[in-house]
């Protein structure tokens, strides 16, 4: 309970800091503020995918359905944050690059993650038996775990040759204003807390549903 209030206040505080206290980046103007939503969402997308894949592999080793609950819940949340990151990034791209979508390397990799999440969840929804769903989706997750690095490796090679613009590197993330940096990292921590809080709720809910189904069966 206390943790929830702290989390709420933390995110509200970071949001206020980001909008009222931190300055805008020259040249980006008000679009600077997408930083506080977009990058934390993209970060959570990657964290959720890693969490889901690690729990999938743990499931294959230990065969305990709790790991599958973690994998499934993290994937659902990851998809949500991935959509937020994609849409907010696309809106920012329209404002700054004057185009919603142009297969920039970062756009390509986030879209790829979106497809992986979608395929994983579609696969889950087509298997009824709990054990079988856990096992097969964990196997799929493990294959995805192996193939993701290839795309992340090949995309910059391919698309830099097609679009030789390095605009994504000129966003000045390295020499970020100290106040922007503070608000940004506060938001990053806030999003991470939010993710693990909702994840915990979802996992507990799944556990309750299963134990209720088991009681009904007995």
């Amino acid at each position: 309970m206390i943790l929830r209030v702290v989390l709420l206040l933390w995110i509200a505080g970071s949001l206020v800091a980001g909008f009222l206290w931190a300055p805008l980046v020259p040249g980006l103007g008000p679009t600077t503020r997408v930083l506080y939503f977009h990058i934390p969402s993209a970060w959570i997308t990657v964290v959720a995918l890693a969490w889901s894949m690690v729990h999938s592999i743990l499931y294959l080793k230990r065969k305990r359905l709790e790991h599958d609950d973690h994998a499934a819940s993290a994937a659902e949340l990851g998809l949500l944050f991935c959509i937020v990151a994609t849409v907010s990034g696309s809106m920012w791209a329209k404002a700054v690059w004057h185009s919603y979508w142009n297969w920039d390397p970062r756009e390509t990799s986030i879209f790829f993650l979106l497809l992986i999440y979608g395929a994983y969840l579609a696969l889950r929804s087509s298997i009824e038996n709990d054990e079988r769903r856990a096992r097969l989706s964990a196997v799929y997750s493990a294959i995805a775990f192996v193939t993701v690095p290839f795309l992340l490796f090949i995309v910059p090679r391919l698309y830099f040759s097609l679009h030789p613009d390095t605009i994504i590197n000129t966003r000045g993330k390295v020499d970020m204003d100290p106040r922007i940096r503070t608000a940004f990292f506060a938001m990053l921590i806030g999003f991470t807390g939010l993710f693990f809080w909702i994840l915990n709720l979802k996992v507990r809910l799944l556990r309750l549903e299963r134990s209720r189904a088991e009681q009904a069966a007995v």
Partner: protein
Amino acid sequence: MPTGESNFGAAVWAILRKECRTEWRTRYGLNASLLFALTTLTTVSFAAGRLGDRVDLMSAFLWIVLLFASMASLAHAFVREVDGHTLTFLRMVASPAAIAVGKLLFNLVFLLVLEAVTVPLFFILMDAPPPQWGRFLALLGLGSLALASTSTLVGAIIAQTRSRGALFAAVSLPLLLPVMAAAVSGTRNQWQNLSVRSELGLLLGFTAAVLGVSVLLYDHLWND
């Protein structure tokens, strides 16, 4: 264990022969894939016209046609077993690894037959310039191996779901995007007389990674 190895080899060979014989009896999968390839090829050729020297577009179209055609029936090897209720018998007589390798080799042979028909037709219909044969065939071979190894594994998963074939393309595609990207870029490069070494390396690495993870995962595929 020399006997174990020869048993494994014999089991793989038997499964490959069985697959080829079943396929040849009906030619259902091959006909579907060939017709699919022909349909896609006609659509592309009809819609895009003669592309002349646009090798960037041609390499993309070539791999889209091949990908679609293979998606139409590479899941078939396992779905057929589940539909015919023969998977249990198969598992009684052979190890999961032998089944997997046998099906993988069958899928590879299947793809090569498909390409032997589709690729010449592509060159004729699209008026493509002659390729650098060595590089082109290496790309085609390694690309097929990467496609076959991934889709065999995904096919084994998909066969056990409720929707079977319908999900196969959607679930395989995200995994196959790196293969597509490397194959398209390599095919374009060989037409432009550039090096394809890094693309071939990527395809080889991808295939090795997928085969490696397959070895670890096949035991988990049929546990119930």
